[in-house]
């Protein structure tokens, strides 16, 4: 399941859905990304996420489908917020459930790694009264590349 929304989500309810009523699930791995209060040595007052409606949903559904093609999963979940967020607020939740923990861990990490280089979101950071677009990190390209099969938002 994927969701793109401005509102916050209920972490426990969302993650519970990946195993509720399905006792063939042996493990659920989840990751929550939060707005940090610092960027380098500068204090962040807010973060605004812009996205590309339509393409975002397509990209996330594609990433989810790829995870299911690669691992024996019971279920997966991607929730990504957009709009203005404050430090400490949740940005994203990814989760995967499987009979075995290795698949759950690998798939969960794959979801966030691919999302970070393929899903059309952009962060605008506010610090010291100024707003600036966050630069993409080469470490995210490296993280995505370890899964093979597709060069992120660069030409494929």
């Amino acid at each position, binding site marked *: 399941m994927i969701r793109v929304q401005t509102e916050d989500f209920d972490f426990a309810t969302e993650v519970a859905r990946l195993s509720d009523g399905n006792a063939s699930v042996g493990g659920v791995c989840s990751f929550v*990304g939060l707005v940090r209060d610092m960027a380098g040595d500068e204090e962040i007052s807010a973060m605004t*996420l*812009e*996205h*590309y409606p*339509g*393409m975002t949903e*397509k*990209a996330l559904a594609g990433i989810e489908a790829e995870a299911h093609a690669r691992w024996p999963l019971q279920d997966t979940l991607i929730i*990504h917020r957009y709009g203005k967020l404050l430090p400490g607020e949740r*940005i*994203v939740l990814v989760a995967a459930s499987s009979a075995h923990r290795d698949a759950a861990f690998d798939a969960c990490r794959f979801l*966030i790694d691919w*999302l*970070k*280089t*393929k*899903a*059309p*979101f*952009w*962060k*605008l950071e506010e610090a010291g009264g100024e707003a600036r*677009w*966050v*630069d*993409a*990190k080469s470490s*995210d390209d490296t993280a995505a590349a370890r899964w093979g099969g597709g060069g*992120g*938002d*660069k*030409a*494929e």
Partner: protein
Amino acid sequence: MKIIYFAWVREKTGTAEETFERPDGVDDVAALIQWLKGRGEGYQTAFADPAMVRVAVNQEHVGVDHRLADGDEVAFFPPVTGG
């Protein structure tokens, strides 16, 4: 065709979205970028370093050699930074 701009590419072009007929000779993304740069200083700044701009056609990531068709939705944006 419909052209959409996001994040700082939108701010530099000063345009969020525009629609026009595909100009003669604009057969691929590289040609479209060249053509757009002729539209004014904002576009020139936005596309000054082509390596910094990503492209999606019909909501799929593509390279600058991607062939364009009438009615395509073309989006230009910086490298993504979600998650």
